[in-house]
């Protein structure tokens, strides 16, 4: 078992990812540290191995995209589409994330310790997302499965065209999107929120959360709605 330190001021992202895809098992690597990410895109995309990976600085678009098994931590901010299509494992961002966090994520856990901007959790398909701060507009758009937990505020049109994903909001909701509605928190919801906060290691236990889910009025075509939703 060893720890490897890779420096992006010496390696290209392609070389880095090639190493992460092909050499971790044969070299028995358990921990990887990435230095000087400098906002570069596609860092640690396509991981499929149970390692701990630490990115020391700000990273760019698609960081840790399609992650499986690995536990990735970014000690900085990330650009668009962090953990896009995550399948399993975890991705933790110590700073802020830009748009489309965990878009289409199927499984695993994504934690944003700061804020996440617009379209957070767009089309999520089963992953869990915990945002300690606030999210921007159109978050949870067409989210199909999984949980999106927002400790701060949610921007405009939250949960527009929502399917079966659940959204929990600790702060204010600017506005709800089409077919999204606020529902009463059940005992099961309280348990889900508590479990998510524990898994995400986010400590805001005193907060009350609101539950937002689909009203399911868009599931079937309604001729009488005259395109007004």
């Amino acid at each position, binding site marked *: 078992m060893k720890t490897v330190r890779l420096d992006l001021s010496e390696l290209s992202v392609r070389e880095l990812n090639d190493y992460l895809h092909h050499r971790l098992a044969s070299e028995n690597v358990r921990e990887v540290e990435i230095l000087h990410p400098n906002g570069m*895109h596609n860092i640690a995309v396509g991981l499929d191995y149970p390692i701990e990976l630490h990115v020391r600085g700000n990273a760019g678009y698609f960081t840790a995209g399609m992650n499986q098994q690995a536990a990735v931590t970014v000690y900085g901010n990330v650009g668009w589409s962090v953990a896009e299509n995550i399948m399993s494992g975890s991705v933790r961002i110590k700073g802020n994330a830009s748009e489309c966090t965990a878009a289409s994520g199927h499984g695993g856990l994504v934690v944003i310790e700061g804020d996440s901007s617009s379209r957070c959790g767009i089309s999520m398909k089963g992953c869990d997302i915990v945002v300690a701060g606030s999210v*921007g507009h*159109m978050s949870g758009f067409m989210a199909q499965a999984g949980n999106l937990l927002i400790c701060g505020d949610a921007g405009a049109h939250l949960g527009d065209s929502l399917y079966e994903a659940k959204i929990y909001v600790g702060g204010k909701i600017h506005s709800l999107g089409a077919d999204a509605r606020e529902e009463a928190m059940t005992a099961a919801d309280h348990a889900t929120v508590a479990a998510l906060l524990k898994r995400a290691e986010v400590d805001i236990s005193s907060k009350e959360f609101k539950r937002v889910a689909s009203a399911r009025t868009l599931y079937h075509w309604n001729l009488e709605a005259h395109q007004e939703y």
Partner: protein
Amino acid sequence: MCGIIGLMAKKKELRQSLGELIIPMFDCMAERGSDSAGLAIFGTALEPPLRRFSLFTDRPAYDWNSLARSLETDLGCRAEITTRDNHAEVVAGIEDDSLREWLKQRGKGVRVLAVGHSIELFKDVGRPDEVARRYGFSALSGTHCVGHTRMATESQVSPAHAHPFTAGEDFCLVHNGSLSNPYSLRRLLEEENLEFETDNDSEAACRFLQWRMRKGDTIEQALGAALDKIDGFYTFLIGTANQMVLIRDPFACKPAVVAETDQYVAISSEFRSLAHLPGVAEANIFEPLPEQIYVWQVAA
């Protein structure tokens, strides 16, 4: 996809190295747009009636000196000229309209890229890093600058279609995105007797904003009207003699990142092009919100 960049020096000491600092920003954003590039840089304002005219021709081995001498003879003014590749800067005490009229007769193939007391503008086709080297961006100094790397999506690749676009004096705009109603904007402005140089959508936005300001709007009011009238995707970055102004469309479809320290305000489509800036690790880095108007003023 296109790249936008902007840099404003908050401290006088930084003004000398503005061009040098912008080069890596520019080179990096070449990856978002590599067919053409441009930069508008604002420096110390000339005393009226003197104006700077940024001129362009793609005629090979153009005799700029002879153009300047004829200008002096015909319009009875002194004209200082500095040339670089396809570009020339003329400093003369004449009105914008007089020069344009005169060019129609005597300067065939020469276009005015920018006019004002502070603005100097370069734009051309080619890889952005190559354009930057050809026009010596690294040696430029000034209070602030606005740049663009273009990947054409809706109108042709030509020097005239490259950004920044200008309208009026000391006013320019760069745009990442695409507009869906540029032709209705054009029709609106053509009724006001405004003329266009290209069929580019960003030019329509630039002329719309400057037209509103000429009618008495502040930049904030003009952008408020733009939110109402301009449909499409945009991050606009605007340069005026003493301001740098940013706005993103209501959906925030196109990216922007701001890094601000006590030394500078730097703006780019992506953080990676700001990563080299001195002190960026301690900078206040944020993503501008949709529909918010951000204005940075040059320090006195």
